[in-house]
């Protein structure tokens, strides 16, 4: 009997836990978003007069 109640509690807890994840969309961000993006110009390189070479 205890095992049966435990099984039900575990099952309902799992539903509650995944409902929380699902409600906030945790782990559901698109996986192909490139977040390593250049923020803008690096600016002038000091001492080169603006030239790399």
């Amino acid at each position, binding site marked *: 009997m205890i095992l*049966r109640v435990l*099984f*039900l509690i575990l*099952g*309902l807890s*799992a*539903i509650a836990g*995944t*409902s929380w*994840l*699902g*409600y*906030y*969309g945790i*782990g*559901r*961000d*698109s996986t*192909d*978003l*490139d*977040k390593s*993006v*250049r*923020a803008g110009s690096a600016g002038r390189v000091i001492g080169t007069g603006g030239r790399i070479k």
Partner: protein
Amino acid sequence: MTLSRAIRAINCTNCGAGLDVLGGGRVSTHVCPYCGAALDAQDNYRVIAQYDRTARPDSPLRLGMSGQINGVTFTVIGSIAWVERYAGQEWVWVDHQVFSPSHGYAWLTVEDGHLIFSRRYRKPTEPDFITSVTVERSESRPMVRTEADKYTYYETSTAMITYAEGEFNWTPKVGDRATAVSLLGDEDMLSFEQSATEREVELSRWLPPETYAVFGAEAPARASRNHPLMPYKNLRLPRYYLLAAALLAILAVIVGLGLSTRQGVVVARLPAVPISTLPVELSFTLSDTEKLTQVAIETDVSNSWAYIEVALTDPDDRPVFEAGREIGFYHGRDGDGAWSEGSRNSTLQFHAPMAGNYLLELTLAESGTWQRSGAALDRISVTVTEGRSSGLWLYLLAGGFLLVPGLILLRYSLANKRRWSGSDWVDEDDDDDD
């Protein structure tokens, strides 16, 4: 002549060998295991036939062995080897006639290492009898009902006796043929057997390998993995867990559907604009950083494709992400009818790092058409929604809940398929698969 109960042995009237008499008063034939003479037990053991001794079958059971089956002691009194040949294949088995002074005659069959116990079935069946002709004329698997069970057609076999020794309550003749139509029930098999002289209905049941030891015999080194009468080993998982798992799965799906269908709040919408206006920027304000924000792109591609680049910058004008989406939709008609693949829509989801004003930039990187019927991308629309949820994890959890009952069901289905794999009936559905 009827033997006195006191007589336990006779001498073969052909070769003089001593023969044990084990089979009770209804024995009609006694085949001498030493010389092969078939003796008429009802007529002073007169020689009625002479059989070859060289084809003695290989069986763990021997004449005179005794053991208990379902609490009844039976003694092996006779052995008959059978062979069935069909389409170049050959099946052999040995029937041992067994006798109990209180329960009469029965059969122990050794087949592919398995031990099968058969008794005459005397109760009514519906229909009364099934012959191979009935099977040939039937358009679906023939069925037979008894008081206790329902039986479905399994196979028809015509076999020939190749060897006989010991006592029998009938007269087996080497070379004689008999046809049996077998139907399979939940736990046993009903066989309608017909030879040149008699018809009989038998009920057969699989016996565990330990039965060999009960008879003082050694079990064969190997037995085939499958026999249609082998019982299905049911997993002892209480019904409660199966039911509870199914109900939890339903609950998880319901909650998952509730989350999936949450629409969220539309924070920006770009109506269908001509593609010539791209690149285009869309500004919007996000306030919900806890839940998902979704960018939904809709196009009018038709047998064509487009690659859209998307870039998002945050309220501090820093890039949040860049992404690309290839959107392609193809359709047509072929010999199987109309078909389509791909989609005109695409979405991307993210959690906003902070509340504030964001800027979404869309650029058309590439586009093209497929075949002459292709219509190039003409218009595009974008909708940004915040406060969205996802039901995916709950659907996966429902799958997890259903895994155990699903596996049990799959196991039962595979066992049932294997059980029927030896049947000679081919259903039309099976035929289509070939």
